[in-house]
């Protein structure tokens, strides 16, 4: 059957495509061009590359230590995993071992980040399906996590916490108690929100069976992170690579078999609870074997020749860094960053097919693009040959 194209919908979303470096880095406005037959989407083209900031090249031009702060700014939401991945690659080249306390503190910082990121995307999902009340409530509780991050690292978002050889500030008992208190308060709320997502009829109607990905497609298209885990693929570099202190901290890898948008959100909520347990475990079992803060004045100036490839489980999936040093200059020879959204968003075109236009934002949000992505949407109606602009949210409610 030949389907005729009646409407072209251009969705210029400011989507996060934290493709690192040479990719725009974050928040790349991605253009999804969906071709719809009536209400049904028959094809989606994904265009990228609106704000490429040239980070990989920038890294080659700056020294190893300055790069720590540059790669932190690849993505604001997952800044600590970026820094951790890069710093561990440099440590592998240097052959450096860090203290156990530093390893535990790194895990704590990364899990706090996972908490706030998952809460954020769930809030955005609630807003996109028209549930503004839930959005405001989740965002209010998320402020507690931000406070905990501020206590631990000294800044709310971009924490600049990782350093070659350890972390940049220690916690004392007062701070530990404060963070524990905030986490325990948030845990209750998270259990409640998880139940809302599990049981609320509005959410179930909008999310269940939308954007289903089968297990084999998830592997074939290199999908990673919660998107793959919701389709039953057990990928978690925390469990397989056991970097930092993940070998000692107990946690479960959450997988679901449904593979739809709802399963992806549920995987995120379950991971949030796991993260809280891990953070509390770290706070209760923090070893005190050595000072975790290296003296930055005495770090090695010269980095030997070598190459390292590290993987980290970021909030959105597997993040990898490749760092190469030629041993001659103080700058890295090559830094390659592959961010999870790069795979998830660019390869996501097949998921939209067969759904209605109103489902498009739902599928997209369930892949965890970024928040402020709610830009406008252009609908070009070929029948009338006019184009009009809509707010992304209105589109979600059904044009």
């Amino acid at each position, binding site marked *: 059957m030949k389907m005729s194209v009646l409407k072209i919908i251009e969705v210029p979303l400011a989507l996060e495509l934290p493709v690192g470096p040479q990719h725009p880095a974050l928040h790349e406005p991605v253009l999804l061009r969906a071709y719809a037959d009536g209400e049904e989407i028959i094809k989606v083209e994904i265009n990228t590359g609106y704000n490429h900031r040239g980070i990989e090249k920038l890294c080659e031009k700056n020294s190893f230590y300055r790069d720590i*702060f540059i790669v932190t700014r690849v993505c604001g939401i997952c800044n600590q995993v970026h820094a951790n991945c890069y710093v561990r690659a440099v440590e592998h080249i240097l052959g450096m071992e860090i203290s156990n306390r530093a390893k535990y503190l790194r895990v704590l910082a990364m899990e706090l980040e996972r908490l706030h990121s998952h809460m954020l995307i769930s809030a955005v999902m609630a807003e996109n399906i028209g549930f503004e009340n839930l959005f405001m409530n989740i965002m209010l509780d998320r402020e507690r996590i931000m406070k905990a991050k*501020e*206590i631990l690292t*000294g*800044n709310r978002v971009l924490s*600049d916490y990782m350093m070659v050889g350890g972390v940049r500030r220690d916690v004392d008992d007062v701070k530990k108690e404060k963070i524990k208190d905030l986490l325990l308060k948030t845990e209750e709320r998270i259990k409640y929100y998880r*139940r809302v997502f599990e*049981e*609320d009829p509005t959410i179930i109607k909008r999310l269940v069976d939308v954007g289903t990905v089968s297990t084999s497609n998830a592997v074939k298209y290199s999908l990673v992170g919660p998107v793959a885990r919701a389709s039953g693929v057990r990928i978690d570099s925390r469990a397989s690579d056991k970097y930092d202190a993940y070998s000692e901290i107990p946690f479960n890898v959450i997988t679901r078999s449904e593979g739809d948008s709802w399963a992806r959100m549920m995987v995120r909520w379950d991971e949030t609870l796991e993260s809280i347990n891990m953070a509390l475990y770290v706070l209760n079992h923090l070893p005190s074997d050595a000072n975790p803060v290296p003296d930055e004045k005495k770090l090695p100036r010269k980095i030997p020749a070598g190459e390292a490839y590290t993987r980290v489980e970021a909030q959105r999936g597997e993040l990898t860094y490749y760092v190469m040093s030629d041993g001659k200059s103080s700058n890295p020879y090559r830094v390659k960053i592959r961010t999870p959204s790069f795979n998830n968003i660019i390869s996501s075109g097949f998921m939209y097919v067969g759904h209605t236009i109103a489902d498009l934002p739902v599928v997209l949000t369930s892949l965890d693009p970024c928040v402020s992505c709610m830009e406008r949407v252009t609908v070009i109606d070929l029948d009338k040959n006019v184009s009009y602009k809509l707010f992304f949210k209105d589109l979600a409610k059904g044009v």
Partner: protein
Amino acid sequence: MRRPKLLKLTLENLVSKPATVQYPYQSTVIEPDFRGRHYADLSKCTGCSLCSIECPADTIKMTPIPQDYEVPKSNPRRLYPLINYGRCVFCYRCITVCPFNAYVTTNEYRLADTAKNDSSELSLSTLKKTVKG
């Protein structure tokens, strides 16, 4: 299917105290070690320009100290680090690499202004002016 108590939550919120902080009439709690505005204490600074080399954003410029200030002998080149707060990313790398711990840190975060500002006034206020004559 059991409905969650979102309605109850809404009603609770209606009668409870607002969650909003009445900012800017009432200030919020900022951690004392929040990374805020920092500047060089010129009585300790030797003008070695290490912070300027290490700054990831190239925001620190070594600038000559104006002639009418008394400069300690440890700073023979009469240079001081001028921080352009507009470009500064507050990573505090300059503070951790400074060999003389010459930086003063604060948790001041309200830096909004109609023009880009820098640290010249704050840094120079740590020095005495030469008495003329």
